[in-house]
């Protein structure tokens, strides 16, 4: 049989997503300009980083800023574990380059206040099992609740189909969403 080429069939070299596309990574290295600093605002703090402009936001958050609550799980924007807020909107950090978010306000799970209704609901309803996908889920729900004037649990749940949880916490995620929305209804949402 034909020899199998590493390029075609091995992970890490598929043409999709920023992170795993080998050719784009090497292009990035040639594009890199001496002394160009990336400016990022994460959780209210300003950072200047010496990284190429098309570095994935996910790895900069995790490995440069050491904010490891944002998780890598699929690298292609399918599962939602790497969700952060960019100017208040939920975005998947694995598919965003740091160049795209310069000057924007980035919030990670660590920057979401501990008394945020979604965090509180997640503890109250004991939603979490292994917990790996949960920061992304929490960030998605938090963004949806704050961007919808009168959020309805059904609406929010319906928009969660592009998330993956392998422990099967879905049933409790629904309860968590319900509980967070009730709290927001009663107490409003501090921003």
């Amino acid at each position, binding site marked *: 049989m034909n020899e199998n080429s590493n390029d075609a069939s091995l992970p890490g070299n598929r043409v999709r997503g920023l992170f795993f596309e080998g050719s784009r990574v*090497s292009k990035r290295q040639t594009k890199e300009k001496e002394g160009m600093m990336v400016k990022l605002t994460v959780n209210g703090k300003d950072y200047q980083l010496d990284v190429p402009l098309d570095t*994935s936001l996910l790895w900069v958050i995790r490995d440069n800023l050491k904010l490891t609550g944002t998780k890598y799980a699929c690298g292609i924007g399918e599962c939602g574990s790497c969700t952060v807020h960019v100017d208040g909107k939920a975005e998947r950090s694995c598919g965003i380059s740091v160049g795209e978010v310069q000057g924007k306000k980035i919030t990670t799970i660590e920057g979401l206040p501990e008394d945020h209704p979604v965090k509180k609901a*997640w503890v109250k309803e*004991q939603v979490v*099992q292994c*917990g790996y996908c949960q920061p992304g889920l929490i960030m998605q729900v938090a963004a949806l609740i704050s961007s919808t004037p009168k959020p309805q649990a059904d609406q929010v749940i319906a928009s969660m189909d592009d998330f993956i949880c392998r422990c*099967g916490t879905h049933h*409790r995620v629904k309860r968590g969403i319900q509980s967070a929305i009730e709290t927001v209804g009663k107490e409003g949402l501090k921003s």
Partner: protein
Amino acid sequence: MNTPISRRTFLKGSMAATGLTIAVSITPFGFKLLHAQDKGKEALAAFKPSAWMEITPDNQVTIYVGNSEMGQGILTALPMIIADELDADWERVQVRQGGALEAFKNPILHFQLTVASASVRGFYEPLRNMGAAGRAMLIQAAAQTWKVPENECVAGMNKVKHAKSGQELTYGQVCLTAAKLAMPEKPVLKTESQFTYMGKPMPRVDIPEKVSGKGVFGFDVDLPGLHYAVIARPPAYGAKPVSHDEKAAMAVKGVKKVIPMPMGIGVCAETIEAALAGRGALKAQWGPGVIPEMDNAYVEKSLMEDLDKAAAVVRNEGDVKATLAKASKKLSATYFVPYIAHATMEPMNCTAHVQQDRCDLWVPTQGQTVAQIVAGKVAGIPPENVTVHTTFLGCGLGRRARPDFIAEAVIASKALGQPVKLVWTREEDFKYDAFRAATAQRIEAGLDDQGRMTAWSQEVVCPSILKDIAPQVVKNGIDFYSLWGLADYPGSQHNNNIMYEIPHFYVDFLISQLPIPVCPWRSVQNAPNAFVIECFMDEMAHLAGKDPLKFRLELLQNKKRATRVLETVAEKAGWGKQMPKGRGLGIAQHSCFGTYVAQVADVSVGSDGKIKVNRVVAAVDCGPVVNPDPLVAQVEGAITMALSTALKEEIMFAKGGVASSNFDDYDVIRMSEVPDIEVHVIKSNDKIGGIGEPGVPPTAPAVANAVFNAVGARVRRIPLTPRRVLAAMKS
């Protein structure tokens, strides 16, 4: 994440005379308690504790357990058992995950391994005794201090009280006195009505840090001088490397070393991205695999053809052949369950630091003892010089009991002379998973003239689960892990035998030789085997013209617990009620790891063959309940995961390797597909069973049986895709 403690800390610090310390060591023959004060250092080391607790003068109780936390709530449940018997104040209890001492050996499994739903069921009695011994000593110490009889003193909330005089002392105040007392030989345990924590929902101790984003999983470990490694791996099973361009990889900025390994070509770099870029630049070329033409059709054909080959007889009771020959009615059918992936949300990873005579691992693992053995072998040091720091596990599901990724990290760190985090991408996690084993089964059964099941014959073809991990256990061509749910090995403590009492009963088994690696997957082969048994049981009930619930109960007359869960679930789900057209209920039961579960699925089937699961009701008997809320969460999660396998999951193969690569081509269950789930836990004082896995097996057959009741389509293979359901509807 609590800081794991090293062996040294344990021997020098923790069990020194800083308070009252009691350890428990659990063996296959029972358990022993050890009072630290009594013994010197050598005796402590030899004792090999399975868990221990310290009560210190600051009035804190610190409990060390060694089981891995992967979302099942074990870091809460085990300390609850101790704290309850100890009469501790939960607010003053700290829980620490013990390091991989040789010590943490699971009583049922004989070493530190978190599998087989064994943690609570194995530790329940020993931990109760440990807590009760501590309570007795603290009471005695207070009584001596006050010079009053012990029986006038009571313990509660980290205090001992003397009602007559109104005096009280905290555990912190009496722990040093208590440490000098002899430990009771046979501590008096509480009765159920005296429990303060057990049976009541306690919030899990690991949830707040997981919600805050601060919980440390393996992927999150950071160390000074940390490097990253990835491996270029062969695209087909057994493919050998032909060429690669080391220079090109080394030319990538940040790449430090290219390391040939048994499993591929490793690239070490300063960042993950540089390691991946370096791996791309390698342009590794591979030869053909051992079966270059292998795809899904090949896999299925191979397993099906094996059904016609000579097999090992596993059970042969009565005379199946003769009984079938004279049966009033009989039926035979062939079933197939495909390979499926673990797809833990956190891909495989391990951080290793090999130094001259020691090796440290920071790893999300279910098997610390195996990790020590494997890392020691690879590093060339004794296993006791390997320290395992267990992180949180981003799902375990059985995959993390396999040490392949640990060996890789140790090779990389040893070659580089630096701490290395070896990571798998999601694509590698799919392609190099050791899957849940596929199985092909032919089954035949007969009824007498009363419609009673008299004979049952089941032929099983399945890869061996244990052949790689524990080949010595596979005897006479039989691997009982592949047969779990149908037959268990003699002397097993897992209770994974079929529940039904059928007078003439035959099972044979043949190991499939396909080159696809397999390993336990939540409930091991209980789930695939339950799919076959419970669907065919339904077929036989319909053949007999009997209600599937009553038909099952007839065969479970001496199985009180299985009967009770079936009756309970039937009542709660409204079994027997009239359903609208295109909608049906399906029932199934299965017991494994000492726990009995029955489920009813309520499904609607569209004219396009698409299944909508409306509701799943479960009844569970696992004996005494320690922490009821996480227990229910485990069953909800198990049902959700099992629905995913019933409706959607199948690994795709092509060109002798794995074609599935990420969640875009291997879809799993999504929010809108998860139905209402109702879990009813039966109050039971029968023997305690496990809870992580037994929720899985009944789900897929309950759904398939419901599909039959809804539209008359019998699908003998999962996943129940619209195409398969439609084909069965038309035939």
